[in-house]
């Protein structure tokens, strides 16, 4: 990736993060930590990787995206806004009664949202069904899903992994956001779902590992995923929960909480808005 493009993507990801903070601050609730940890991945997917057109959000031949960790809707809405699916100013309506931006993604009322999600484990299964349909159609469309590390404790994730491996769905790519924290604490203090690499390999998957905040590594990994034949790919993305906002980084208490006015100002300063 050339320096100019890297700089552009970095700036877009910064604006995505600003949107995330605007959303949860306006809503006085929501999930900033996991949204910030996937902001760079979402930026790469929506601005580099996926074959999509904001003017044709229902194009049957578009690539599909499922946010299986649906509580990180602030991240999804913010990248959709940056990509032109919805007005940036609508982000402030997040979680408000009179807004279409629901606490978890609602495909019926939000342009660009391919699947309603939020109940963990279900989105990845849906993505497998979408990938299977593309195979049946002989279509080149690809399917992407972002899942959480805590989410990988759900049994259904492994039902879906078994299914996708069995059917050799090489048009399917999951990104596992490995930020190491879930609501009740560190993965190792809850029920540790790791190691993910050996588990996915056992189910017939191609496994890649990246720094979730490095666009060059993301570029290499997504290219490798596209090149992998006969196997679905999981990209284990090592991330920092709360990335970009000093007091939220690696702090589990910011999984599902909004900043107050003072904290909001610090966050905006951290993100270069002040």
């Amino acid at each position, binding site marked *: 990736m050339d320096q100019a493009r890297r700089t552009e993507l970095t700036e877009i990801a910064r604006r995505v993060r600003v949107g995330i903070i605007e959303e949860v601050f306006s809503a006085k609730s929501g999930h900033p930590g996991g949204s910030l940890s996937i902001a760079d991945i979402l930026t790469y997917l929506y601005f580099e990787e996926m074959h999509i057109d904001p003017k044709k959000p229902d194009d049957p031949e578009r690539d599909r995206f499922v946010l299986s960790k649906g509580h990180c809707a602030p991240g999804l809405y913010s990248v959709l806004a940056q990509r032109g699916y919805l007005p940036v100013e609508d982000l402030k309506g997040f979680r408000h009664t009179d807004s279409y931006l629901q606490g978890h993604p609602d495909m019926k009322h939000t342009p660009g949202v391919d699947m309603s999600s939020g109940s963990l*484990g279900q989105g990845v299964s849906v993505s497998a069904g979408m990938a299977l*349909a593309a195979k*049946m159609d002989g279509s080149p469309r690809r399917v992407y899903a972002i899942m959480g590390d805590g989410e990988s404790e759900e049994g259904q994730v492994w039902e*879906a992994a*078994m*299914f996708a491996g069995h059917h050799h769905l090489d048009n399917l790519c999951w990104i596992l956001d490995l930020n190491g924290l879930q609501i009740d604490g560190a993965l190792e203090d809850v029920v540790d779902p790791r190691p993910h690499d050996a588990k996915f390999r056992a189910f017939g998957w191609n496994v890649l590992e990246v720094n979730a905040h490095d666009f060059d590594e993301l570029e290499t990994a997504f290219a490798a995923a596209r090149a992998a034949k006969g196997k679905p790919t999981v990209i284990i993305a090592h991330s920092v929960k709360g990335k970009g906002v000093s007091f939220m980084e690696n702090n589990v208490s910011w999984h599902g909480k909004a900043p107050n006015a003072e904290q909001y100002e610090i966050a905006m300063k951290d993100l270069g808005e002040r």
Partner: protein
Amino acid sequence: MAETMATREAYGKALAEFGAKYENLVVLDADLAEATKTGTFKKAFPDRFFDCGIAENNMICVAVGLALSGKIPFASSFAMFAAGRSYEQVRNAVGYPHVNVKIGATHAGITVGEDGATHQCCEDIALMRTIPGMTIINPADGVEARLAVEAAILTQGPCYLRFGRMAVPTLFGSDYRFEIGRGVKLADGTDVTLVATGIEVEQALLAKELLAAENISAAVVNIHTIKPIDADLLTAEAQRTGAIVTCEEHTVIGGLGGAVAECLAERCPVPVLRVGVMDTFGRSGPAKELVSYFGLDAAAIAAKAKAAVALKK
């Protein structure tokens, strides 16, 4: 002796028949294709059949992904697992986004027989009724099951189809008309209306004969679609006969009996007595014996009908 066929048998045959007509039709199963009869479709269209293994929750959501990509998926398992185990998948991934997924649930009710309580789902209609936008169809015989499958294919949105394991007499002829949401008046009567669904339609028709011998005139209505229910027909019957008996192979809580009682309490309060599984679990036994054991046979319906008539003012 009338021809008999289990509704699950008709379901499998209908899938194979309509597979030729509707090329987007795909069928999923969870290692029960032999029992649910989706194996009939698998034989005819192996490229459009996917066995998901014993993983029903994934199957329901894979069906969602297929439907969002233009397919018309029928996801099949026993009612216990399709509606019970996967309730939350059906609620959140099918119901909430109103996806065009059809759930073909077989082995519903106590006529599963010898396998017993763990596999006798008498709660599925109640569960599915709570999901906004869900259509629920419970066919009475093979003819109705076939028509229900095609109606579900042609109707956009989530649909739960309930089929049985036990062979039942074919009640309807080739001229039988089926429309989702429209009840069918099968027999006229003036003293009481027997409102039945699924295999209980046959029992209600037999009960009408028993009641006639005691000079009680019973009408019989087939409610194949439990949601949306035919409120106008139910109201008209309540106004006309003034007494209702609901008949279902399902718990009396939240199923047909619940739906009819809710409807008539608001629109035309009359005595509504419920024949069904009385808030209990099933048990092992030959299916036909269990119909009597659980008080679902014609004699039990006739007894409830007399009680309903006695309650009329």
